[in-house]
């Protein structure tokens, strides 16, 4: 029973992972800017699904609410307000594409090798659900000071964005 469940987990993981990687590549290569935003939704939804696989319920819900609900809408507003062309853009990439791809591939090589050296076949041992209750207890006891700092930061960012975007 447990073995079957683990197989199911792995199948789910690889389906999600392939979808995410394809969508992420499309985000950085497509010439349609609105398509890029919509592929980004796919990647973010995949990340939320991974959090569910890792039994992290609260962060999965937050991911859907904040990223897919708010940040993508913000991106679409940004696209609309900067009058982006609705068709394909012919100058969406600059001439650093090959250098960029090389750097990304090298980085992936170094990180992949290091991860393989460090964690080779380390399995998750009895994954436990980390409930919203646990997260709340941690945020409001151990990490209450960073939490307050984050709220001030968000306020500062809000005011900063208004000041920057205001027409005067």
């Amino acid at each position, binding site marked *: 029973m447990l073995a079957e469940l*683990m197989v199911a987990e792995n199948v789910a*993981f690889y389906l999600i992972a392939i979808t995410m*990687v394809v969508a*992420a590549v499309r*985000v*950085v290569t497509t010439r349609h*800017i609105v398509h890029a935003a919509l592929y*980004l939704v796919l*990647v*973010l939804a995949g*990340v939320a699904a*991974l959090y569910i696989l*890792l*039994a*992290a319920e609260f*962060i999965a819900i937050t991911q859907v609410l*904040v*990223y897919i609900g*708010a940040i993508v809408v*913000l*991106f679409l507003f*940004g696209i609309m307000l*900067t*009058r982006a062309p609705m068709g394909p853009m012919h100058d*969406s*990439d*600059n001439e*650093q*594409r090959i250098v*960029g*791809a090389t750097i*990304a*591939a090298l*980085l*992936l090589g170094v*990180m*992949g090798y290091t*991860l*393989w050296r460090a*964690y*080779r*076949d*380390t*399995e*998750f041992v009895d994954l436990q659900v*980390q409930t919203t209750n646990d*997260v709340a207890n*941690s*945020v409001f006891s*151990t990490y209450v000071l960073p*939490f307050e700092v*984050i709220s001030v*930061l*968000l306020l500062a*960012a*809000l005011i*900063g*964005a*208004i000041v*920057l975007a205001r027409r005067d």
Partner: protein
Amino acid sequence: MLLNQFLFLAAMLFCIGVYGVLARRNGVMVLMSVELILNAVNINLVAFGAFRHDVTGQVFALFVIAIAAAEVGVGLALVLMLYRNRRSIDVDDVDLMKG
């Protein structure tokens, strides 16, 4: 599930994001690539949190999400300013301080 499955996926997302930041011209598309990078970091944090049975990973992922929201807000405001002043959001054109 292996821990490395998640870490490799996060590394791939990170590298795709790095490529996007380097190769994209459009300011909004650069910000989208930065989102990919931040999500890769979050996957790592939550995976290690689950691995160590420690809720701290999730708490830090939450902080990263909050900072990402602030970053996108300010970033898009900057892109809008750029558009208003120059009628273009090509980040390669913003080279006033280039030596």
